[in-house]
């Protein structure tokens, strides 16, 4: 629609005389306006960036303050004396390293399983065509309408009856199927030309070896992107682990941190340290794999 209304303008712009005439008219004024725009856009960008960055900066800097200085007014941005005591205390209290290890196991195992299951399903939905696959596609879309939060009680009962209550398996298995992952792979495999599959078939390759030897290798960027997303989701999960895990030795980081926050008197020094430690793996992961996160066209998966 937009393109139609704009075509006449584009045609007019294409005629060279109009272009040069306008350029001449703008002259130096145009350049000055250009500088003005650079200044205003850059200022706005960095004001916002400062606003978004400051809460975390303040938090991290505070975590290096000695416990006694945390509440001593006037507050200072930089710690007067730097200490890592908060981190040491956090690490040594509440089985914290155990929480850390549990979270790692859950996040990594779920991520591997999610990537495998999503890749297979996404490929089948994109490259095969029959009625029950369409039904499955609709069913997977429907899961986006049924988030964990909506079905807490019945899903909990299912997990309990399967004997997964109070085990890490109870948070891993139900999280493997994600609509986003399936849709991401489906969108990707739709862009892969059917001729590639046909050619392999003519060469006599079997269906599953086409998938394993041609399709899986070319989908590696999607795998990495989904892996990063999945790792982040599972690392940050809260409500489901809270329901399924009962034994403190099986807690994940988020539950551990919430148990510090929920205490009658919050031990801020430990809380700050624990929270910052819990952020480190994700931030490292993001910095290393930045381009896979930023270049992803999440739209593609969600649009259709």
């Amino acid at each position, binding site marked *: 629609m937009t393109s139609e209304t704009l075509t006449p303008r584009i045609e007019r712009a294409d005629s060279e005389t109009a272009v040069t005439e306008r350029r001449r008219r703008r002259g130096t004024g145009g350049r000055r306006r250009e500088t003005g725009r650079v200044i205003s856009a850059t200022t706005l*960008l960095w004001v916002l960036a400062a606003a978004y960055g400051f*809460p975390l900066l303040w938090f991290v800097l505070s975590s290096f303050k000695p416990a006694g200085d945390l509440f001593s007014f006037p507050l200072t941005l930089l710690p007067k004396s730097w200490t890592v005591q908060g981190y040491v205390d956090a690490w040594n209290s509440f089985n914290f390293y155990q929480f850390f290890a549990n979270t790692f196991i859950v996040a990594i195992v779920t991520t591997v399983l999610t990537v495998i299951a999503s890749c*297979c399903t996404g490929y089948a939905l994109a490259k095969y065509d029959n009625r029950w696959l369409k039904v499955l596609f609709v069913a997977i879309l429907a899961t986006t309408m049924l988030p964990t939060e909506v079905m807490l009680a019945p*899903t909990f009962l299912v997990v309990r009856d399967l004997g997964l209550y109070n085990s890490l398996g109870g948070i891993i298995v139900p999280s493997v199927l994600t609509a986003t992952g399936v849709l991401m792979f489906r969108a990707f495999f739709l862009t892969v030309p059917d001729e590639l599959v046909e050619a392999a*078939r003519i060469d006599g390759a079997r269906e599953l070896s086409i998938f394993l030897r041609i399709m899986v290798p070319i989908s590696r960027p999607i795998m990495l992107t989904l892996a990063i997303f999945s790792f982040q989701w599972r690392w*940050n999960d809260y409500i489901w682990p809270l329901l399924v895990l009962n034994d403190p030795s099986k807690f994940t980081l988020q539950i551990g941190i919430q148990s510090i926050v929920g205490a009658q008197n919050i031990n801020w020094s430990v809380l*700050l340290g624990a929270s910052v430690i819990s952020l480190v793996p994700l931030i490292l992961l993001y910095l290393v794999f930045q381009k896979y996160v930023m270049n992803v066209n999440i739209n593609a998966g969600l649009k259709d």
Partner: protein
Amino acid sequence: MSVTGTTASRSTETRPTAGPRIRRGRAPRLNHYRFAPLILVAVNVVLFAVFFAWPAVIGFIYSFTDYTGVGSFNFVGIANYEQLFGDSAFYAALGRTIFFTILVVPTSFVFSLLVANLMVSAYSRGKLVARIIFFVPWLISPIVSGVIWRWLFGENFGLVNFLIESLGGKAVPWQSNADLSLIVVVIAATWGGTAFSMLLFIAAIKNVPVSYYEAAALDGAGPWQLFRNITLPSIAPTSFIVILLTTLNAMKEYALFQSLNNGGPGTSNNLLVQYIYQTGFQQGQIGYASAASFVLMIILMAIAIIQLAVNRRTERRR
């Protein structure tokens, strides 16, 4: 390697017959390739059946019972729903959830769109570093975000009140006033949700043909006009998705409230999911909580359907 070998040798053997078989198979292709997709989707089909379809069914059944999670249960008809719609705590939670959503969605929309525009603008400098800064809040879990904002807005110890007092103001009751407390959660939710919506917007804006902008700029359109008349209409489908996703996420917010104000002061900021959690798991009324869950699900579906309908109508009008 061995796999490669066998397939290759088989391919040479079957090549003469492969051509006609494929051609014959074209039309009823579905019959030929039924087995492979079956294997490929098997895992997710089982997971869907066990963790989505089955819970949905038993949840619906339990919502008509007095099940407590253990032992036997009796069917009580629509008693759970009657009790639910007569419970003032439910209405309070529902109202607070809707209020929270109404505050978060526009705030989040405006900020993520603004940031996305600055991130693709040819005029702004330092985008690589800014991008990381905007993105980090998205990595942070709702629990830790809550802690971060609680630390910043602490009533007696927070930096914000310290600055207000240093400037001669009076300490603001960020924790003990229900509405101010909710506003802090709105800020935290916007802060954490911007990056994801921003990614969607950036992808959409980059897909708008550059020629539109060039043509309009030659005609003397300023940045605001370009945004208003080209960017905004072109990214309408993405705006729709962003609004839908933020609405759904806001409606089921739980962890952020838990760590920021624990649904407080008192129970004033208890949202729907917290209500379900408390009735179902702290009071053991699985049947009752299932009924509440069903109401939440119907609300979420209604939101999605209404937004889809509105989106379709506006698209037809254009």
